[in-house]
């Protein structure tokens, strides 16, 4: 199909699809008139039953926690997938250049990066542990934490020398986070008989230690997201930082990967 034909076909198809969609959304309630009942029922029962005023956190981590488990696993999958898809370069790690030839980040970059890591981590921790009280939570805090980890990674004295260790560390961190959330789901099954059911004391609404499993789940998600996002960014960063090896090196590396596969 030539580009013109394709664009024409797409325009006609999208116009037709758009027309049907416009007719369809005409059948929705007017904007601003959410009819319920799902959200309204949750708004009624959550504060009393879960000692939790942050309805979104309660929905994400308890009532619809299984979705979140799936979502975290998708993130985990993406991290595994990025590592797998970008893995050609991993063979070169730490073996292609002797340590003293590796370019180091400038002192200023290291100093600024290093100085920022601490405050950013504190902010991430704050957002995570208040996730059941205020907007934010495991996901937002985790992404901020990933920022701290990437800073630490980028400012690290010998980026490439430490790479093997830090990648493994990030992988372990994301696995611990995801495993923690799965363990929470399993904990409900073992302790009270239903997967994902709360099995921790509920405490007083509005306190830092309240709402049972919800803050624990936030913590697990925070660790997982921080590890996974940092891992993905680190893999891309490494791609961007590594300059091309000479061709000869290239081919030997390819030979390594082109080994028979079944």
């Amino acid at each position: 199909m030539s580009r013109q034909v394709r664009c024409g076909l797409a325009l006609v198809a999208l116009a037709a699809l758009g027309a049907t969609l416009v007719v369809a959304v005409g059948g929705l309630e007017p904007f601003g008139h959410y009819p319920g009942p799902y959200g309204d029922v949750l708004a009624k029962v959550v504060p009393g039953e879960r000692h939790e005023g942050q309805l979104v956190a309660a929905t994400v981590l308890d009532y619809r926690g299984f979705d979140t488990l799936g979502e975290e696993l998708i993130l985990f999958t993406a991290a595994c997938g990025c590592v797998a898809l970008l893995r050609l370069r991993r063979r070169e790690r730490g073996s292609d250049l002797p340590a003293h030839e590796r370019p180091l980040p400038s002192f200023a970059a290291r100093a600024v990066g290093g100085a920022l890591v601490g405050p950013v981590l504190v902010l991430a921790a704050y957002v995570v542990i208040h996730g059941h009280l205020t907007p934010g939570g495991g996901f937002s805090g985790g992404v901020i934490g990933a920022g701290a980890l990437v800073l630490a990674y980028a400012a690290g004295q010998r980026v490439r020398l430490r790479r093997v260790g830090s990648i493994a560390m990030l992988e372990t961190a994301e696995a611990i986070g995801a495993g923690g959330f799965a363990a929470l789901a399993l904990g409900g099954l073992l302790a009270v008989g239903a997967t994902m059911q709360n099995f921790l004391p509920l405490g007083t609404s509005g306190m830092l230690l309240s709402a049972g499993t919800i803050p624990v789940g936030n913590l697990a998600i925070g660790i997982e997201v921080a590890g996974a996002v940092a891992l993905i960014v680190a893999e891309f960063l490494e791609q961007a930082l590594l300059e091309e090896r000479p061709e000869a090196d290239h081919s030997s590396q390819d030979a390594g990967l082109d080994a028979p596969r079944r």
Partner: protein
Amino acid sequence: MALASLAVLVPLGAAIVLGGTTSLRRRRIADAIALAAATAALGLCLALVARSSDATVVAWLGGWHPRDGVALGIDLVADPLAAGLAAFAALLTVTGLVVALHQVDTASHLFHALVLLCLAGMIGFCLAGDLFTIFVFFELMGVSAYALSGFRVAERAPLEGALNFAVTNSVGSLLLLAGIALLYGRTGALNLAQMGDALATRQPDALVAVAFALVACGFFVKAAIVPFHFWLADAYAVAPTSICLIFAGALSELGLYGVARVYWTVFEGPIGAHGEAVRDVLLALGLLTALVGAVMCAGQRHLKRLVAFATVAHMGVLLCGVALLDGAALVGVAVFVVGDGLVKAGLFVAVGALEDRRGSVDEHQLYGRGRDLPVLGALFGACGLALAALPPFGPFLGRALIEDGASHQGLGWVAPLLVVASALVGGAVLRVVRTVFLGRGAKPPPTHKAAVEEAGEDPAERERPARASVVVALALVGLGLVWGLMPGLVDAIAPSAAHFVDRRAYAAEVLHGVRAGAPGVASEGPTATAWLYGLASAALAAVVGLARTVPEGPLRELHSGRVGDYVAWLATGAAIVAGLFAITLG
């Protein structure tokens, strides 16, 4: 209760362990953990099948039972068909992991982790009783499948295949999610049963019709229904063999399962009264898919693409079965999924074994070079006949029940078209037997001689894994053949299928815990006409097998390998389906 969530959590947990320990290089440990987890998941799913044959198993996660018909949380629902499909996916995953035992490049434990994540996604997808949870697990199996199909990153084609796969399926998921959002706006619910109850009280309007179209199109992309199918051959032909067999045997079928599940729990109420319009649209798509897939299959000389297009063709046959919208045809669909899935999986493994031995999957390059591989040749022959629906084996039984279902609705003309489709597919495989394993027929012009090399320096080194694959392929194909001969199979599935299509019973069980009695269903084996059709398609396949590659004409040009074209076709298909549903139902 615990079984359903454990069936998802076990592979997930193992995947997390494997994904977190990729710095460990002990390959055998990864193999052992992955195999153990997949086998455990298989056992749990089989236990669910057994448990649910008495009464549907409903598990409310978090212990949030519905109140006054309003679901607070998420439920996992296992009925025999859903649990059976999950078990089938787990069985193929175990097989895939066995085939992968000899795969060299697994990038530490990443390969195993991704396979288990895909399995968890498939099981969760089968068992979810909540539309958004279905979406989440649909994405989980999708994302892991993208990564797996592009796993051989050192080569060019896998990257392109993975790219086409990921982009088209992501657009499909968008349509699915847009449909879910529309339904949520109408019903204020995400639980399938609750949505069905909320919709059943009103006449269908444009919103319901378009929502159904969007949800169906989202699933059609995964199920590779024409014109949503273009990505499939690209992705399946480049994935490692161990993954191909899971994809071709289970992943595509799950897309159609999604359509069936959502139709019979959510839409049957409002749309069921206008079932004929829906049936005609779906049937047209199914026949188109069967014929396009079959013609493309018969025109392939790349063996993996050949099997991939066979998958497309048979997804069309399955969609015809679902399109009839009744329980009797659904029995045929269930039988066909397993019988055909096993044979296709076995055929993929056999192609992989041939690739291992001869270093090529090109029919012309392989011409006559399979003469000393009698076992593989016989295996290909058996697959060809089975795919052509030779009675009384597995794929025949399924297709025959679908054909009988169509005839019952006065659609006698469907069966001959399905015969043509199966005959082209089976004939293509039989043609490979003739050229590659017998070396008969016109010799192809010697092209690309340079590319023809024995793969690997040491033939003996390649022998052992190839032999292991042949054993696996024999087992798969054998099972697929025997499947149709199991006594009482149809009688066992018929009540489950009748239950699957009963929306009211589903809603009562899920929302109110009311156990429905097992419906008494009179089930019948295939009619004499269906036997004749089966014999006819096998004979026709033999004729096709003698012919040269069937030219597929302009169809081939459409399969351009360009993702922009594919998405344009996807949008066209979605516009047509949505438009037709909006006009006929709205």
